């Protein structure tokens, strides 16, 4: 289909839920109030690491207004976790706490205030244990064990993969760079705090409404930890007030609310405070990285060796996947013929890290893109040109056996280079940096070299700079979290004689617009307007399973399922209309709320009439659509993390000034070009890109999840700095279309990939402005001033990590590099017919 054949796809339509949101009618989890509802609070640990000697709840139970108090003794002794391999969490801790904020007990009471008061009346005796608050601490003290499982003392996961002979490739390079980087952890900070309402009714059935991105996984965990048949549990995801990965795990508060409802015979609501949300976390892992890459004189990469150490915090969460993601996606962007990746996730006594927008990939992306900038400088190449030359070929495999389909990265680079005025600014701004910095040994962008001698700059402390970086991201994980052969996403489409069409799908709208995309695609197939389609999402008793709103999988997977379901409905209706009009079904089209033959449109029947004919011919009209990704996991252990139906690409240029006196960075403009395959709705796509850029800016310049003596240093929205309207620059979004054969009408991922390049692009622009290297995020003013001070003292002007842990990675699994091989079969997947 060409662009002009679409009626709905590509239109800048409002989201289907926009109207409810602008009038305040959308009901988020904490907006639910049920008759007789009790309010619950959790008592959380004040210690980062301690044995629980005793918990005495007598005083809390005696408080008037308290309905129930529960501890671990009141729950089945069953641990849980999002990944089958990391079942290490307890709804309420039984023997030990592993972080400040670990839940110990819970109270249900007549109101929140009484529940809070009752929590303070619970007496806990702790036996404090040494708290391990960093990767270095945790590895230096193997005698202190946070968990008894894993790949070694305090080592959650130790992975090593090698694709081809990296040592030989590096030995043959013209330039070999070894660099060390650190990416500090940060958190999602959704505006809505997590909340849930549980109602365990007297017929033995349980309903949970929750602010979750993954109702299906919550459903599974509830069945497990409450020892109740999943068939008797219904999980409804309420509209989510911001997720970004932070509402992707099943949580203690959801389980506890259910148990309290069972005990009290009342609906129970629990709503976390903002401080609790900071401790609940599951956000960006702090990652220390060592990266060694070989280059030819022309900038080709000969091979790459990456080591990552992840500070995982107190629990497994998605950590095994996160560990792989710090290594496996980098080769999707540039030609890396041979590749070695070693990664380790370390347990510490901090809130558990997990998936945040970009899940495990912004950190190594920062390392690679900054290293490319350094290599370009040494080789005397323009950083944009260097990247442009080494973009992966479409429809090939990477060294680590990932099949890539369409690639619009070259076009993305060209577009941001042109739109930003890259070449002129690279030369012009480079001047001030070159005058102030140490000899760099390379030209600064291929412009006329020495004009700075005659071009007087005003003596402002604010130095301009411009930097570039690129990225790639998955369009949905190619394998499920738990091994199975079932669909990853399902849709039921239903139509009746009213002409109304309903879509049932387990997808969860977290603001990204999944309800809208389902309506758009269904309307496109059936020739309707989106307003004609009612979307019923995320209800485990009514909607087919969708795995959840994570890994940028929803538009592609739910979208393909919706297109299949709607196509089946259309075929059934066409058959009935064809008989009525005495034409061949193949001659019919659906458009403008009618079905007919284009050349004889006067005879076209209304959609409602067509449904009547269909119902008369077939009976009830309800059709399923199923989607599972192509089976492309690499044939090696660990090959299941990284495959995706297709990958999005983006290129980003940042222009900024850095104040030499204060170290303050002012962003002027960000240009971002994003290959999204097909624009299903430009407003929504741009919104996702703009939000990604914004969030990346926060991570690059200010956001950090840091601790002192076990406590979060800044567990409030004032102290945890995030960008406001004033820190957010003008964002210029360019959408690039490549029409991917794996995506719905050609669409790929949009909501995560664009976050990745802005962080290294900022670091590279700061270097361009001042000639300093900050190899650590966030890049705060103190680090910039420290680098300038180093330069004044004649030392290399670099601020970043200066040591690596003493750690032995396991012997690598050695696999042949698949680099450059033809892609696996395209468009072949289960449930296609």
């Amino acid at each position, binding site marked *: 289909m060409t662009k002009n054949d679409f009626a709905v796809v590509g239109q*800048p339509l*409002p*989201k289907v*839920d*926009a*109207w*409810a*949101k*602008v*009038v*305040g*009618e*959308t*009901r*988020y989890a*904490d*907006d639910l*109030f049920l008759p007789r509802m009790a309010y619950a609070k959790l008592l959380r640990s004040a210690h980062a690491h301690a044995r629980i000697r005793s918990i005495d709840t007598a005083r809390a139970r005696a408080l008037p207004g308290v309905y129930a108090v529960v501890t671990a003794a009141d729950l089945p002794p069953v641990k849980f976790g999002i990944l089958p391999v990391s079942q290490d969490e307890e709804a309420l801790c039984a023997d030990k706490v592993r972080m400040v904020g670990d839940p110990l007990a819970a109270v249900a009471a007549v109101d929140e205030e009484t529940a809070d008061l009752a929590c303070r009346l619970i007496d806990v005796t702790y036996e404090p244990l040494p708290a391990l608050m960093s990767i270095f601490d945790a590895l230096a003290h193997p005698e202190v064990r946070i968990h008894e499982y894993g790949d070694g003392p305090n080592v959650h996961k130790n992975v090593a993969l090698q694709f081809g002979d990296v040592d030989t490739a590096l030995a043959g390079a013209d330039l070999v760079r070894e660099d060390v980087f650190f990416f500090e952890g940060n958190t*999602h*900070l*959704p*505006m*809505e*705090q997590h909340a849930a309402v549980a109602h365990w009714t007297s017929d033995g059935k349980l309903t949970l409404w929750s602010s979750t991105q993954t109702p299906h996984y919550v459903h599974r965990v509830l069945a497990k930890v409450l020892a109740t048949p999943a068939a008797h549990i219904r999980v409804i995801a309420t*509209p*989510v*007030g*911001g*997720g*970004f990965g932070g509402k992707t795990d099943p949580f203690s508060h959801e389980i506890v609310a259910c148990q309290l409802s069972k005990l009290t015979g009342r609906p129970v609501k629990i709503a976390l*405070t*903002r401080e609790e949300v900071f401790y609940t976390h599951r956000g960006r892992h702090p990652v220390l990285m060592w990266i060694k890459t070989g280059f030819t004189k022309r900038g080709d990469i000969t091979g790459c060796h990456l080591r990552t150490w992840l500070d995982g915090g107190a629990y497994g969460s998605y950590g095994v996947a996160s560990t792989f993601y710090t290594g496996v996606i980098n080769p999707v962007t540039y030609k890396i013929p041979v590749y070695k990746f070693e990664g380790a996730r370390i347990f510490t006594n901090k809130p558990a890290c997990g998936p945040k927008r970009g899940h495990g990939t912004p950190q190594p992306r920062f390392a690679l893109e900054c290293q490319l900038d350094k290599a370009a400088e040494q080789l005397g190449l323009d950083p944009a040109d260097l990247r442009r030359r080494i973009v992966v070929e479409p429809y090939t495999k990477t060294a680590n056996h990932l099949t890539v389909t369409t690639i619009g990265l070259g076009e993305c680079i060209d577009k941001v280079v042109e739109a930003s005025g890259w070449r002129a600014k690279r030369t012009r701004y480079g001047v001030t940096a070159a005058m102030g910095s140490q000899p760099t040994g390379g030209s600064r962008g291929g412009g006329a070299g020495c004009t700075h001698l005659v071009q007087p700059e005003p003596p402002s402390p604010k130095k301009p700079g411009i930097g570039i970086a690129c990225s790639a991201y998955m369009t949905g994980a190619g394998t499920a979290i738990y091994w199975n052969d079932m669909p990853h996403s399902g849709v039921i489409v239903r139509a009746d004689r009213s002409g109304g069409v309903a879509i049932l799908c387990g997808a969860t709208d*977290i*603001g*990204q*617009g999944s309800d809208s995309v389902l309506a758009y695609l269904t309307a496109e197939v059936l020739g309707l307007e989106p307003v004609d389609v009612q979307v019923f999402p995320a209800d485990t008793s009514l909607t087919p399973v969708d795995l959840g709103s994570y890994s940028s999988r929803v538009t592609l997977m739910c979208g393909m399922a919706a297109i299949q379901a709607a196509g089946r409905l259309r075929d059934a209706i066409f058959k009935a209309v064809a008989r009525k009009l005495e034409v061949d079904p193949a001659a019919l089209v659906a458009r403008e709320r009618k079905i007919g033959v284009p050349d004889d449109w006067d005879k076209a029947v209304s959609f409602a009439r067509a449904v009547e004919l269909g119902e008369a011919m077939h009976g009830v009209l309800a059709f399923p659509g199923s989607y599972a990704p192509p089976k492309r996991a690499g044939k090696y252990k660990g090959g299941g993390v990284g495959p995706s139906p297709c990958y999005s690409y983006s290129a980003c240029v940042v222009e900024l000034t850095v104040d030499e006196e204060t170290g303050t960075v002012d962003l002027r403009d960000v240009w971002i070009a994003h290959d999204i395959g097909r624009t299903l709705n430009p*407003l*929504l796509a*741009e*919104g996702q890109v*703009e*939000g*990604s*850029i*914004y*969030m990346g800016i926060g991570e690059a310049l200010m956001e950090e999840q840091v601790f002192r003596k076990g406590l979060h240093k800044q567990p*409030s*929205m*004032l102290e945890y700095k*995030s960008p*406001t*309207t*004033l820190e*957010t620059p*003008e*964002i210029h979004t360019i959408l690039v279309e490549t029409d991917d054969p794996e995506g719905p009408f050609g669409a790929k991922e949009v909501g995560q990939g664009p976050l990745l390049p802005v962080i290294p692009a900022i670091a590279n622009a700061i270097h361009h402005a001042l000639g300093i290297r900050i190899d650590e995020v966030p890049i705060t003013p103190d680090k910039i001033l420290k680098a300038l001070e180093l330069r004044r003292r004649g030392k290399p002007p670099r601020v970043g990590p200066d040591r690596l842990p003493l750690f032995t990675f396991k012997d690598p699994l050695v696999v042949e590099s698949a680099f450059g091989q033809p892609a696996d079969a395209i468009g072949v997947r289960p449930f296609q017919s």
Partner: protein
Amino acid sequence: MKVRIALTVNDEVHEALVPVHKTLLEVLREDLALTGTKHGCELGECGTCTVLVDGQPVLSCLALPLETEGRRITTIEGLADGARLHPLQQAFAELGAAQCGYCTPGILLTAAALLRERPSPTRQEVKEALAGNLCRCTGYTKILDAVELAALRMERART
């Protein structure tokens, strides 16, 4: 200690018997069932709970109902003129300025107060007016665009 209060919210008088320390935010949501007003921090840091008191943006998580007796409170439920949306609401929906929508009520009310005082603000003035309202979804771009579009439409409607 509970007190009886009478609040004028969206041009209707509501009477309630509430604990004296209960915040305006809590009373609006829990006693008056006006759940369109959201909470993000309950510490006055994020702007999510903004309502208008006599036309001025006020953080309802820091306000006590007693202080607002006899004053005109406007929540998101009262921004539209009956069934007719405020131009800001229309523009926010049309331009995709609400993603998750959770910060949207507070931002709409803050922007409404701005446009009353400055009918044709510059983009910088809009940014400054909304600097106390955090949004984690949009990168603010579409929000600023929508405020500008609404201002333009309101100006056209006046002339």
